[in-house]
């Protein structure tokens, strides 16, 4: 399985970026091997609207099972839900620690709803 984590930097030592749509990077990790790749999300940072939808598409395209992030808005949530990707919100700290907490089952509370409003326009 693979998980995606919103990150402020390109590697596992970076801090979680609390934003989803306008996160700096997505780190895609295989929790078993800890192999990872970083996907840049800078093209979404300046979007006036639709960042959540675009970021959702990136995540769907990276074929992950779970997304760990700080906050998730309604449209991004809908996109991820439609694609069957489960979301864990309120992640904060180092990306590496989040993966460990996910593996140990400490982070296992899947969100049933978005936790923030959209911030477009």
């Amino acid at each position: 399985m693979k998980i995606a984590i919103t990150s402020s930097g390109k590697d596992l030592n970076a801090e979680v970026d609390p934003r989803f749509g306008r996160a700096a990077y997505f780190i895609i990790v295989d929790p078993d091997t800890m192999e990872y790749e970083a996907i840049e999300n800078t093209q979404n940072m300046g979007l006036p609207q639709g960042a959540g939808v675009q970021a959702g598409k990136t995540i769907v395209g990276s074929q992950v099972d779970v997304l760990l992030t700080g906050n998730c808005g309604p449209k991004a949530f809908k996109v991820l839900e439609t694609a069957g990707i489960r979301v864990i919100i309120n992640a904060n700290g180092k990306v590496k620690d989040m993966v460990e907490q996910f593996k140990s089952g400490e982070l296992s509370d899947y969100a049933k709803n978005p936790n923030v409003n959209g911030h477009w326009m």
Partner: protein
Amino acid sequence: MVIAVASGKGGTGKTTIATNLAASVDGNVRYLDCDVEEPNAHIFLKPTDLESETVTLPIPEVDQTKCDLCGICDQICQFSAIAVMGEYVMTFPEMCHGCKGCMMACPTGAISESSRELGKLEKGRSGHIEFFHGQMRVGEAMSPPLIEAVKEHVQANALNIVDAPPGTSCPVIAAIKDADFLLLVTEPTPFGLNDLKLAVETARLMKIPFGIVINRADVGDNRTVEYAKEENIPIMMEIPDKRDIAVAYSNGILMVEALPEMREKFQALYQNVLEQLK
């Protein structure tokens, strides 16, 4: 002719200038309140015989059975209002700008036209003034299409007065574009001057001839007048900071009704605009 009344800063007196100007000029006058998020000219003009119609925007509706997931609609939409997710096409109606591009581009005819309510357009009459305003639906975030619907009532042979929303963003552009002259209302305060400069930049970019109206002209300092001089911008009118004006305003009474001597000043403002356009 179209005279638009705008300002960078809110609360400087756009509606005060626009309503009193409309009330002071005789003949065929149309008032178009384009501040659709918070229209308030009706409080002063008190239009009667109101007729209301609903204004909508075309949005896509997808027939999933006809869709072959080619993704052209997703690529063409600049606003992420339609997106192909795996084997499903999702739409986000509240983000749609109504261009119909997806409907035209769809090769299998899977996208048909549905609609989203933007708000109401109301028409009425106030003395010699034909009155129009938009009232945006609560929860709607996109005002330019409703502003454009109000502006469809601009009449070529009338004096059309457009009351614009504050600021310098899309709703303001929608309200002031195609105006023959722009009155920028300001107050002589640091905030007023800062936002006036932004509004001046907008007017210059759009190549609309403009002048300044200074409201509450005797408060604050002289910097607005100096700025106008330096930039060679005509000061079209100055309105003093008078308690009588404020009292009338707070009772929803036009300045030219409460202080009839002001009527001539607004007529002079109109003549001043005509002079500038010569």
